[in-house]
């Protein structure tokens, strides 16, 4: 790597200063402020600030709804990640074969990633809506079961899982496709010569060789499902029915912005911050060590 030498020893600092300033102002400052606020019971207009120490956290962890929300989030993130990765891997393998019009297929497969989560939510809302949705209409010919996700929690959950998987699909596919193209054809040919069939080749060679990509995508998708699905939930289910789709990030937003319980919301965002720090640390530690390259 080329090492750049600056003549003026202050110039490099000056050049990075805007980025550092922005990081400090937009990332560190709010983060520290959340931590501070999480220790208080605060009024919306800021006229009352009562120190409660761990009170907000104690309230959170003793609240059955919060524990349920945590379980829902983990479940949601896990399903989105596993289903999303499996689907992307299969389709990437297919899109990696030599067929006509491959460029078109690939572009179409990558497309959903360019759509904002809230828009994706609205699209799925139109497909799933109990009264004007296409899917319930089609299903009504097959079964008399009512797929009303205003009342049935599992239908609502399925809906946002599908929407989230679809939303993140293009991104996952792009990485898998790149990973697949990085695998030397000669390795696979050698295996064929040794008599390994396509399934064996995939399981014994391709999949292990893709493990760094899989691990990277795993953490990334977990983070996505935990934090960036807010728009989806907000535009489709609003956390309901009951609290079936009330994931942590949605609950934190709702308690803070809709209900103006700022201290409680700050405590929730501190918990979320801990989760994302944990996930990132996990990625840095294990991605380097445990994964075969």
């Amino acid at each position: 790597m080329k090492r750049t030498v600056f003549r003026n020893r202050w110039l490099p600092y000056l050049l990075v200063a805007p980025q550092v300033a922005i990081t400090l102002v937009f990332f560190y400052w709010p983060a520290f402020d959340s931590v501070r606020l999480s220790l208080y019971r605060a009024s919306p207009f800021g006229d009352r600030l009562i120190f409660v120490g761990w009170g907000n956290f104690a309230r959170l962890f003793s609240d059955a709804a919060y524990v349920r929300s945590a379980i829902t989030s983990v479940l949601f993130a896990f399903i989105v990640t596993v289903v999303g990765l499996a689907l992307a891997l299969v389709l990437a393998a297919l899109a990696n074969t030599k067929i006509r019009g491959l460029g078109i297929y690939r572009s179409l497969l990558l497309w959903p990633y360019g759509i904002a989560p809230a828009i994706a939510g609205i699209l799925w809302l139109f497909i799933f809506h109990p009264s004007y949705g296409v899917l319930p209409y089609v299903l009504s010919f097959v079964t008399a079961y009512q797929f009303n996700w205003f009342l049935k929690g599992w239908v609502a959950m399925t809906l946002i899982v599908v929407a989230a998987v679809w939303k993140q699909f293009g991104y996952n596919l792009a990485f898998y496709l790149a990973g697949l193209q990085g695998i030397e054809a000669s390795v696979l040919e050698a295996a064929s010569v040794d008599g390994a069939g396509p399934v064996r080749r995939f399981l014994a060679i391709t999949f292990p060789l893709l493990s760094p990509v899989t691990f990277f995508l795993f953490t990334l998708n977990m983070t996505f499902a935990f934090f960036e699905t807010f728009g989806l939930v907000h535009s489709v289910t609003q956390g309901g029915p009951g609290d079936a789709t009330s994931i942590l990030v949605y609950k934190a937003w709702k308690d803070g912005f809709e209900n103006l319980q700022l201290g409680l919301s700050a405590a929730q965002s501190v918990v979320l911050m801990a989760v994302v720090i944990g996930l990132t640390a996990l990625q840095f530690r294990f991605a380097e060590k445990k994964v075969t390259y």
Partner: protein
Amino acid sequence: MRRTRHLSTSAAAALVLLSAVFVLAPAPALAKTEIHFWHAMTGVLGERVNEIASKFNATQNDYEVKAIYKGDYTTTLNAAVAAYRAKQPPHVVQVFEVGTQTMLSSGAVYPVYQLVKDNGVSIDWNDLIGPVKSYYSTAGNLSSMAFNSSTPILYYNKDLVKKAGLPDKPPATWAEVESTAKKIVGAGAKCGFSTAWPSWVLVENMHGWHDQPFADKSNGFDGLAMTLKINGPFGVKMMEFLARGSKEGWYTYNGRGPKGEANMGAGECGIFISSSAYIAGLTRASEGKFTWATGSLPHMEGFPQGNSIIGGATLWVMKGAKPEEYKGVAQFFKYLASTENQAWWAGITGYLPLTQAAVKAMEASGVYAKSPNLKTSVVQMNAGKTTPNSQGLRLGNYGSVRDAIEEQIENVFAGKKTAKQGLDDAVAKSDDILKEFAALYK
């Protein structure tokens, strides 16, 4: 990733530059005093609000009201909170009824009756229609300026009612709602009866309408409410009734907020309860497709008559502005309360006319004769009896309380919990939320 970051950097830089320009811009010579009015009205309603501002501006030369759309109710309230904390509050902000107690407790508002008195303006508060006055008054004095108030009313699809072979009139009791909805479903309709704004319509309003307490301390009017009363005999009976409807298929729950309106507007539902402000929306949705009419809320036999509770929003005056600006705000409010403005506003929006004089003016001008549905809410509220149970609701963290209620009624309608169990759980959760608010303002 990198690219977005660069983009956000330049966006931030542009923002800094822009704000610098605004700060440095010289004040225009001979400036009118500006009054900033933050609101949450979109679409047609947003245009009407702009119209109000420009009409007021045309009446005089000293003040200029700038109506600024800030996003939905929640976003607008949050923007006002942020602005107040940054010591740059708007003069007037529109806050939905859920935020009433938050505003009252905030210490950040200048009560309207006081503002009007201090600035030598006279508005006849006694002419305000009862429920509007009671909801937003403290000790008989109006805290915020009534603006857009609505109340739930019953809508019915005339075509579906006719198809079911029923007389063309709204059901007056819940028993009639049941029998009508059953027949409508029996005649092949998808949904016999549905609702929007579940907690507001089915819990809050039903308690007021049947003169039942919703929360302690007269629904929070005599001090900070600490416990809900919705799991009493009436609340449970009402919920059991609806849960049975959901199970038997003549009541269709269609989600929170205004979501159910989509089904009514599509012509699927026979009977529907939503805000009177839905008249404008339903008029547009049903055009050329089906006919409908409205009626008063149905009554549950064996319980007394109270009144329906209003929803919507009022205008709050924020502390921290200059005296001459407040003078302008007082003038603006005087204009808002004028019969001319009230009659015009109610006639085009479906919101309640806020004064008796406006009701009379609308009667005289033939608006009601032309669109009788606009009058339903007024008739309903004037026929009802405003008691401590139906004067309104004043709860801290009201939004969270509503969430807690809606979560549980969804569990009840889905058959996951009994009515009693669901309401008990909603009360337990709400009490915790209310106590948290009370602890903040003890």
